[in-house]
């Protein structure tokens, strides 16, 4: 029974990983920019939610009305003014990756430094919807369940947009071949900028959802960037549909591994899984060989 509860908690946490990774996969898979400052947007969303409930005494879910526009606009500006010059001068994707990694690492340091200066490095957390819920005899916290449902709803909405709308079709075309997409009249830069911005907004939303049940600090960002990256590589770069499933898989493996082996080794277990996938199936689990 305890094992089932551990599994369930892993599943719920994995949904969060899936949602975070979804944002990163939009940025890396479609806009072709590996953004290593991604986790800072997540932390930003978490902090805004924290201030919303602690300072302004409001429902933390309302914080998205502040954090989503900011994250969206900031990501859009980063893409428009910092990434497009890099894309212009890069001869190939490898060179672009190297430049983007360095610049976004720089942004990561700047954002994290600013967060540390203004918000300090203290661990933050608050209680919200911390009520036990019973499912099939197992007990879980309501906030985890709500966050998970939110993640699934967002993932489905995103999938719907990509699958059934005109913009979605354009984005899928860009994922497959940006040059050819440009040739058939799709404005690749505009769409990429929008999708990059949407990825940042998704990170902030995930930060808000996760902050309802996990404590965080100004330095938490990098951990989520890494986990998101692991999930993206597990799912396959640009494979938006598999991302949520890969996130859930990571969450379950992490929870079960932490319970059965040692809770302090969760990161090691994550990377064990990551390395295994890199070595065995470097193109991702959900890609056709």
């Amino acid at each position, binding site marked *: 029974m305890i094992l089932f509860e551990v599994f369930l908690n892993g599943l719920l946490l994995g949904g969060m990983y899936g949602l975070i990774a979804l944002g990163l996969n939009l940025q890396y898979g479609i806009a072709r920019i590996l953004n290593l400052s991604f986790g800072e947007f997540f932390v930003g969303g978490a902090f805004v939610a924290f201030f919303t409930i602690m300072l302004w005494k409001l429902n933390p879910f309302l914080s998205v009305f502040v954090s989503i526009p900011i994250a969206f606009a900031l990501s859009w500006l980063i893409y428009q003014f910092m990434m497009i010059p890099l894309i212009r001068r890069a001869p190939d994707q*490898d060179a672009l990756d190297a430049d983007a990694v*360095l*610049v976004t690492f720089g*942004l990561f*340091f700047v954002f994290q430094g600013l967060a540390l200066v203004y918000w300090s490095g203290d661990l933050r957390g608050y209680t919200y919807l911390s009520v036990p819920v019973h499912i099939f005899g197992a007990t879980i916290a309501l906030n985890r369940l709500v966050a998970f449902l939110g993640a699934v709803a967002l993932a489905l909405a995103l999938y719907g947009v990509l699958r059934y709308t005109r913009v979605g079709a354009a984005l899928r075309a860009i994922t497959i071949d940006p040059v050819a997409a440009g040739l058939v009249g799709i404005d690749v830069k505009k769409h990429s900028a929008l999708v990059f911005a949407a990825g940042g907004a998704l990170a902030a939303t995930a930060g808000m959802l996760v902050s309802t049940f996990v404590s965080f600090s100004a330095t938490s960002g990098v951990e989520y960037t890494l986990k998101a990256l692991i999930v993206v590589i597990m799912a396959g770069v640009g494979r938006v549909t598999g991302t949520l499933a890969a996130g859930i898989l990571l969450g379950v493996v992490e929870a079960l591994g932490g319970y059965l082996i*040692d809770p302090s080794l969760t990161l090691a277990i994550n*990377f064990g899984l990551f390395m295994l996938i890199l070595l065995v199936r470097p193109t991702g689990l959900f890609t056709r060989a």
Partner: protein
Amino acid sequence: MPDIIDKNRTTLAIFAAAAVILALLPGITSGYLISFLLLMFANVALATAWSFFSGATRYISLATAAFFGIGIYTLAITHVYIPVGFALLAAAAIGFLVAVIVGLSTLRLRGVYFVVFTFGLTELVHQVINTWEIKINRTATRYIFSDVSNVTIYYVLLAVALITVVGSWYVSQSRLGYALRAIGEDETVARHTGINTTWVKVLCFALSASAMALVGAVLALRYPYIDASIAFNNSWSFQVLIAALLGGVSRYWGPMIGAIPLVLLSEFLAGTFPHHFSIALGLCFIVIVYFIPGGLAPLIERYWQRLRDRVRARLAVAA
């Protein structure tokens, strides 16, 4: 080609003069300058070792802290059983061995995958050692009982820095160096021209890692105690990476030049304003990519050449 000999002679003279001055320094100066300079040598050695592999092959490694930390731990564990000199050699050897194992399994990853993998490697080793220490040894810290003076450490690190810079120059002129650069240009082409790319990559990765482990082991002699978060501090990886890129990885002396401003910055900012140091580090990354993508070394070389031409022209006019 007298010009090349002439150029090398100047470089050699500068190197020899600098080495002699630095070697005589402990006799005449204060303790603070010594401990500042030895940190400088450590960073020069690390940045040069990093650039030796990652600069030439363009495999951007963030595993510097992992090998550095392995060196620290090797020294901390072995120095109570064997003489310090042997402990240092053991650190270099273990760094080499670990890098061979890691290299064989992962150097087929390219680009972003390799960056993320090496970053994760540091975290992985950090967590595993931390858990091991707490579970098996029942304590997170290890004490270091060393009576090695700062001046001795200064000389050892000066020697290590010199060996890495000269070694890096020597290899860059050799067949191995050409093979490394060929891999950096185009790995598939390199393989087709008959270069055993796996062997070259693993050997150079391991050489670079053993230098990092050695520097870690020497610096560990200055710590009263260590734990996993001191040994595997990621900021070493970033600082070394920026130093190398700032100086420029296309010249063997580039990383050395880049390490100087970075150590100054960290010395005056990191202690009192650690968060501002992180911001400054981030801005460095961005400035390098947008404004000096080749690093400072090619710029310095160009100015030096222009200066020399001007002086020669003057002399010619005077004659």
